[in-house]
């Protein structure tokens, strides 16, 4: 293969895998929005919490970050469940209008809590596979990035099984489509919302753990990811889960292509440019209402 084509494939592979993580983050945000009509502005901070949970378990107990998923994911679920139960549910009828400040404030508390507990200096973990790569038809792929991509596939696959194969999943979809109708069928929609918020936060936490071998952890690492999750969700259409997956992949590829062919300095900006273009030309998202919702 000639070097130019190889470089293109290399960039695309990198972008696709990074995009997978964006899809994971965006799916959590989109799920929450689809059911509760709330944009969780603390989403990236929950991701940071995930990174620090894995970091803590690694430093203190030498637990491999991938194993720590077994602890971090349920912790994230519980955290999200409690936040909905004791913070957002209290907003009552003002949920849609007040949730922006509530989640933004929560994000500040989370990131400052991490600052208090772990300090401001960037930290990383030292595992053998962090820099390991392997070749696939000439394309070099980072092992932790591939694991992250596969983890995303698994998480999204499980979410689909849950939503489309279980009683509770059906109740979640019903609550998203018509909360009043669901409540009248005997669904405790307040509880369903807590479960959904827990799932969304668990997704962010899992993404954080998967990113730890690849990135430095610092308390405000999440800010950037809140923005990316929001971009992904808007690209795919708010509340549209398949849209969020495609949106994440698109964002990853655009960033990767831009970084390689234009300049690496503006990596985060390329996605925002596309974001603005979508808002101007297709404000309902790339797929709008044509794709099935939650």
């Amino acid at each position, binding site marked *: 293969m000639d070097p130019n084509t190889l470089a293109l494939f290399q960039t695309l592979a990198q972008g696709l895998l990074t995009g997978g993580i964006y899809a994971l983050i965006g799916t959590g945000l989109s799920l929450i929005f689809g059911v509760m009509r709330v944009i969780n502005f603390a989403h990236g901070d929950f991701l940071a919490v995930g990174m620090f949970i894995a970091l803590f378990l690694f430093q203190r107990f030498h637990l491999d970050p991938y194993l720590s998923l077994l602890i971090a994911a349920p912790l994230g679920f519980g955290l999200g469940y409690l936040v909905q139960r004791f913070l957002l549910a209290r907003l009552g009828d003002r949920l849609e209008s007040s949730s922006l400040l509530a989640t933004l404030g929560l994000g500040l508390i989370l990131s400052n809590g991490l600052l208090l507990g772990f300090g401001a200096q960037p930290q990383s973990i030292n595992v053998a596979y962090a820099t390991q790569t392997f070749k696939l038809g000439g394309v070099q792929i980072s092992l932790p990035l591939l694991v992250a991509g596969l983890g995303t596939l698994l998480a999204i696959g499980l979410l689909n099984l849950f939503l489309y194969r279980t*009683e509770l999943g*059906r*109740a979640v*979809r*019903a609550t998203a*489509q*018509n909360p*009043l*109708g*669901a*409540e*009248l*069928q*005997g*669904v*405790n*929609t307040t509880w369903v919302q807590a479960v959904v918020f827990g799932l969304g936060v668990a997704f962010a936490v899992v993404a954080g753990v998967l990113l730890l071998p690849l990135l430095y952890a610092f308390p405000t690492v999440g800010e950037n990811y809140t923005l990316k999750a929001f971009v992904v969700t808007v690209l795919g259409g708010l509340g549209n889960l398949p849209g969020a997956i495609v949106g994440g992949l698109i964002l990853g590829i655009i960033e990767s292509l831009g970084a390689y062919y234009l300049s690496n300095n503006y990596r985060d900006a390329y996605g925002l440019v596309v974001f603005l273009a979508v808002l101007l030309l297709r404000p309902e998202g790339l797929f709008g209402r044509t794709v*099935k*919702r939650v």
Partner: protein
Amino acid sequence: MTERTKVAQPVSGDAEVLSVRDLDVAYGEVQVVFGVSLHVAKGELVGLVGGNGSGKSTILRVLSGMLRARGGAAQYRDHNLNGVPPYRITELGVAHVPMGRQLFGQMTVEENLLMGAYLPRTRERRPQNLQRVYDFFPRLKEKRASPAAALSGGEQQMVAIGRALMSEPEVLLMDEPSLGLAPLVVKEVMRVIGSLRQLGLTVLLVEQNVRQVLKVTDRAYVLELGSLVREGPSADLLDDPEIRRAYLGV
């Protein structure tokens, strides 16, 4: 009707399954229901009629837990209903066919019906209940795989009724089932409601379409500006000159 008729107290009997006593309901500072009392006996089909803003849907919203009354009582058998969340009331055996149908638009007809059997107490008999609904509404069986939003208004109303039946209710509350439907479809829906008694259901039907309700129900209550002004056997109300003048346009 200008004159407020004093309404007799309901005769209470052992068979009374649903009752409302001296109900006062307000939205904020604005009171919309004033001391309304009514009851529905086992197996009865009772209408609650009145014009726009007469408070009839408000009373139904209290009965299904969507709204808390300021005063008075709302009861299903021995259970207080006032202030109880809607999902608990469904669990008790009072199903609500809400105004505007409130279907799950992107789900198939069958999934909508299955949602009606979400309660654990009904899950075991879900296949039989589904069959029963399909027998009752053969058209829904044909459309079982279509998204609910793709159905006609009349068909959607059938889904809403079928979904409520899936929870094995003793009492069915129906809020304006004819709203937004073509006159011919209204007749069809009313015929279906009339035949619900074959299933042993007790029905409280709230409607603006007074003539249709009086034709299909056993008894009816007439509300005006939040107070009861008439009650009695529907056949009598149909002949009542004042009702005819005010609601039937004759």
